[in-house]
């Protein structure tokens, strides 16, 4: 069993990642490995670089240096860090389901249309197949009745659950969550976390940037604490939250409660 897993390439591997905005260095050489089935939580204060780190994985931010590998395939980069092979990047992006803080559902499309957009127009899945799959996913996130609704007419929690379903619709190898509950009213956070927890429980590979410490402790298999663009401390959640070594992390955990 162990050997079967270890023979598989890591789902996501980030090595020595640097990112600067102008003269401001946001990431100063951070690395991360997510094996298949891992749930890696990235925590840290605002401005620590955690969202930037996540967004570099699918090149929504162009890294300034370092390497990104997805399912054993290294993303080809030019010397300045920009993607060298657009087709390759698009193919790799199609295997990563991203969920954003602000949902970013396409407002001119109904929920169902949002879910089938990429499967039908990019992955060339037959439409009826894509629709059937989308309905199953909507049912799973509790939005079966909302398939014809436009996003603007749904609550934040419903929109985020639809966005998660949209990310799942491309059958991704890994999921990237960028503070998925930060834009939600407190009473709507639970319904979204529940969906994410369900995905973690079924063994999906996920990288999760979050402010929800209790949730990170609950679902993560590995936690990274980022401070000023460097990994200050990392390890299994019970270590990081139960017995933090770094003074900064102790302080951080105290402030976020």
């Amino acid at each position: 069993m162990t050997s079967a897993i270890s023979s598989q390439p890591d789902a996501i591997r980030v090595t020595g990642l640097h990112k600067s905005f102008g003269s401001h260095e946001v990431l100063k050489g951070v690395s991360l490995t997510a094996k298949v089935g891992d749930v890696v939580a990235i925590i840290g204060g605002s401005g620590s670089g955690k969202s930037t780190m996540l967004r570099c994985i699918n090149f929504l931010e162009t890294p300034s240096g370092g390497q990104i590998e997805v399912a054993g395939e290294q993303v080809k980069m030019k010397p300045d860090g920009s993607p060298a092979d657009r087709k390759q990047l698009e193919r790799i992006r199609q295997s990563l389901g991203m969920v954003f803080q602000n949902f970013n559902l396409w407002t001119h499309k109904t929920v169902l249309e949002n879910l089938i957009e990429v499967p039908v127009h990019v992955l060339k899945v037959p439409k009826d197949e894509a629709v059937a799959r989308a309905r199953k996913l909507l049912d799973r996130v509790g939005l079966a009745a909302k398939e014809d609704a436009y996003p603007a007419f749904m609550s934040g929690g419903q929109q985020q659950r639809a966005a998660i379903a949209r990310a799942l619709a491309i059958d991704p190898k890994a999921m990237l969550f960028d503070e998925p509950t930060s834009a939600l009213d407190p009473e709507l956070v639970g319904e979204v976390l529940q969906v994410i927890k369900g995905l973690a429980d079924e063994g999906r590979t996920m990288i999760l940037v979050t402010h929800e410490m209790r949730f990170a402790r609950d679902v993560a298999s590995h936690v990274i604490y980022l401070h000023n663009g460097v990994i200050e401390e990392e390890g299994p959640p019970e270590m990081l939250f139960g017995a933090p070594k770094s003074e900064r992390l102790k302080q951080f955990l105290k402030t976020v409660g």
Partner: protein
Amino acid sequence: MACPPVSQLSSFELLGLGECGWGDTLLLGLGNSILIALGAYALGFGIGVAGAFGKLYGGPVTKDLAAVYTTLVRAVPELVLILILYYAVPGLVNEVLVAMGRETIVLPQFLTGVVVLAFVQGAYQTEVLRGAILAVPHGQIEAARAMGMSPFLVARRIIFPLMTANAVPGLGNLWLNATKDTALLAVIGFAELTKATYQASATTKAFFTFYPAAMALYLVISLVSIYGFGRIEKWARRGQRDVRG
């Protein structure tokens, strides 16, 4: 059948169709105006889309070219552009042709009209469309990129439909401008509505009959257009909440 003298005809007879009235001249002019406006607007839209994407996503050379284009065209009065293209450019071309021992050319009026007005429309549409693209929420574009859509697909499936809602009011204005800019082509003698009106009233001296008639025709174009653009905007805004609440 000989027509009675103009002074004995009523306004209705003057505006009537057939041999004695000028109605068909006016309607022909109206048709020409609409055709020119449609052609110029459509061609201008093509230029506008290319210009807007070029200004936003193009390389440095493309951006500079687009900037020079929109600046110059919007700086020079359309009438001057029409005169330059219709008289100055062919004059220059003909001098070259004569020097080469070839025959001189005369630009077809209709085509010239369409091209000049499209050239002007394109510059204004570039700016309207650029603004509309900039108003598309960036997150929705990111979501499309993050799922592996190609830039062309992102433009066609996401940016284009989303910017339409933002662009319709501005594009509606430009369409109304286009319909009225056709009147400028009267200076090169093209028989659009204004030229036809001028002919009719100059011949009959019935200025107070023909100019109000022309105004009414322009008004009808505007009203139909406003209704049409309203429908388009309603369609383009599907999925958006009514801001009036």
